[in-house]
């Protein structure tokens, strides 16, 4: 149970820590204040708690696929915020798309953790194991995020921006693919053909498989729609990021 808890909490924490670190690094590289991150984290944690409390009601929406649909909507919203951030070079220093992306990512990942932990509320005997597993998973995830942040901002500015752009594009692709998977699970879009099967090479439920899922959205048996969404969003962001700011674009603005 400890390992299961560690892996689950770590997977969700890593996903959130990745986007928090990269966008915070992005913000620092563009000379913006870091205050928005506090607002985003508090909003995200509060949102996750509200969502977890109302999980049962939400799951009944849309003919009992409410949770899948709401989660998919959040994934697409994060993806859209990142696309907005990259679309106009002048808006790259704007803080509101980053605030939206981090808040929703924290709601999404925090909700998964709270839902898992709520399953042990009645089982007092398992609490110490679950608490320890959560502490270990959260500690590893947060530490990895902090080190990633320092790694990004520690690079030379041009290289740091390229690394941050790549990580943002991977994260957005992952969000889009996960959103599509949730809609497939909700039967809102057809499953489509399976593009590859690497379950024998690297199982999704293995520790490495779960870590890669958190970092780059690894799927052992993705459908054509997931691959299309991932590749489409990744390439779109990549093209957006290739457009460099010109003098006329200025330095952008934020709240």
């Amino acid at each position, binding site marked *: 149970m400890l390992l299961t808890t*560690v892996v689950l909490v770590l997977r969700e924490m890593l996903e959130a820590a990745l986007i928090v670190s990269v966008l915070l690094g992005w913000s620092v590289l563009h000379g913006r204040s870091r205050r928005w991150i506090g607002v985003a984290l508090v909003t995200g944690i509060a949102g996750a708690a509200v969502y977890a409390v109302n999980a049962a009601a939400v799951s009944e929406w849309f003919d009992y696929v409410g949770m899948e649909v709401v989660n998919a909507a959040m994934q697409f919203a994060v993806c859209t915020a990142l696309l907005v951030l990259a679309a106009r070079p002048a808006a790259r220093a704007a803080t509101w798309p980053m605030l939206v992306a981090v808040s929703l990512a924290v709601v999404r990942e925090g909700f998964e953790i709270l839902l898992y932990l709520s399953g042990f509320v009645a089982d007092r005997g398992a609490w110490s*194991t679950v608490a320890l597993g959560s502490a270990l998973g959260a*500690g590893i995830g947060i530490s990895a995020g902090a080190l990633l942040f320092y790694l990004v901002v520690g690079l030379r500015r041009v290289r740091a921006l390229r690394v941050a752009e790549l990580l943002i594009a991977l994260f957005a692709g992952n969000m889009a693919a996960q959103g599509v998977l949730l809609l497939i699970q909700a039967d809102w879009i057809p499953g489509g053909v399976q593009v590859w099967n690497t379950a024998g090479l690297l199982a999704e439920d293995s520790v490495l498989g779960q870590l890669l899922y958190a970092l780059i959205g690894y799927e052992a048996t993705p459908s054509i729609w997931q691959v299309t969404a991932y590749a489409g969003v990744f390439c779109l962001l990549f093209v957006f990021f290739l457009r460099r700011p010109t003098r006329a674009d200025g330095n952008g603005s934020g709240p």
Partner: protein
Amino acid sequence: MFLVVATLAMLVLVVFVSAVHGYRSGMAEAERLFDGQLQEQAHLATSVGSERLATLDKVANIAFQHWQLAPGQPARLLAHTDNIPGTALVALEPGFGHANFGGYRWRTYVHFAGRDDVVVVAAARTDIRYRLADNVIIEAIMPVVLWLPLSGLLVWFVVGRGLRPLEQLAEQLHGKQFRELSAVALERCPSELETVVDSVNRLLERLREAFEREKRFVADAAHELRTPIAVLRVQVHNFRERLPEHADELRALEGAVERMQHLVEQILTLHRLSPEQLHGRFVPLDLHGLVQEVVAACYDTIEARRQHVELVGDTDAVERRALVAADRFALETLVRNLLDNAVKYTPEGGNVRVGVSCGPAEVVLEVEDDGPGIPRAARERVFERFHRVGGDAHASGVSGCGLGLAIVRNIAELHGARVEVGDSRFASGARFTVVFRRLGAIGG
């Protein structure tokens, strides 16, 4: 901040990953231990007669079956404990396996006794084995996690202590006054920082020597120029007497020599006003009284230009004395340079006003005129050395070397005063304001 967060993050990452790895290894080791125990219990069960087998489950959470093999016939169950069904649960082949019965999953071990073809099947509940191992290993890991906040505090404290000398060094360098090039010294200098402090001090020493050489050279050169310039002035004067037909050219030459002499005097004044020269010569001085003396000394020049000079002192400044801690020569030079400047740039018949006033903590000297004034954009640069508003082609046509106001600012800085330039209260002109700390002021 970076060091503390990065160190803590690495510490947490390494310790927690090690804890997870330790848990996995511990569980695998516990599994081996429990298997060994099950194996031993199966061996022991061979010595227990089939008739006593039913009592064993009361002393341990373990189940047994005794089977007898007969060639060509199915295996026959001889006995079993109450907590295991009387049916075959696993294939009767030696070794470990798993079986599900009684609502639990069991770890099984099949042992061939080697006598009378008896086979022992021993089974232990996996959930109990798992819980036992889990409890023991978690008890071992828990302190690592619980003590980590203390480790964090220690890291924060040690990093803070370790960086303190570096912060002290930065504070000392940052707090150095203008041209203060004395060596830096730390209360406690760790060996890692010794090289840095040593290099900084050697750099400061080289810089101080370079400044000294430059100042000595300029002062010596100016001093050496005084005599030939004086001789030159006398000779030009003599020539004017002897060659009246060249009076115009010689007057221009005499003016140029006068400017040269003024420049040399100003350079020497700058040298005399260096911090080293002034060190320890500050005494309480009444600024109002000193201004009166300077105005009186310059009165001939002012009168020659038919200018009107007014000395204004508020009641407080006159009655209670506007006391400042200053070097007399330096303060006289400051007042004279400001007055000279005002007189020089005020047209003949113009007005010059000198004011001394006292605030609760400061003494303010104001010198203003109704000359052309100084454009707003040029105000900061007027205090630079050899800078003249409008360059050499100065609109006023007044000669000068561009050192007077630089000397004023230099003296003001040495006295901890601030000097500003603005518009005069006349219709036109400039106003120079010097704000000194008042001696004996509360909190001053």
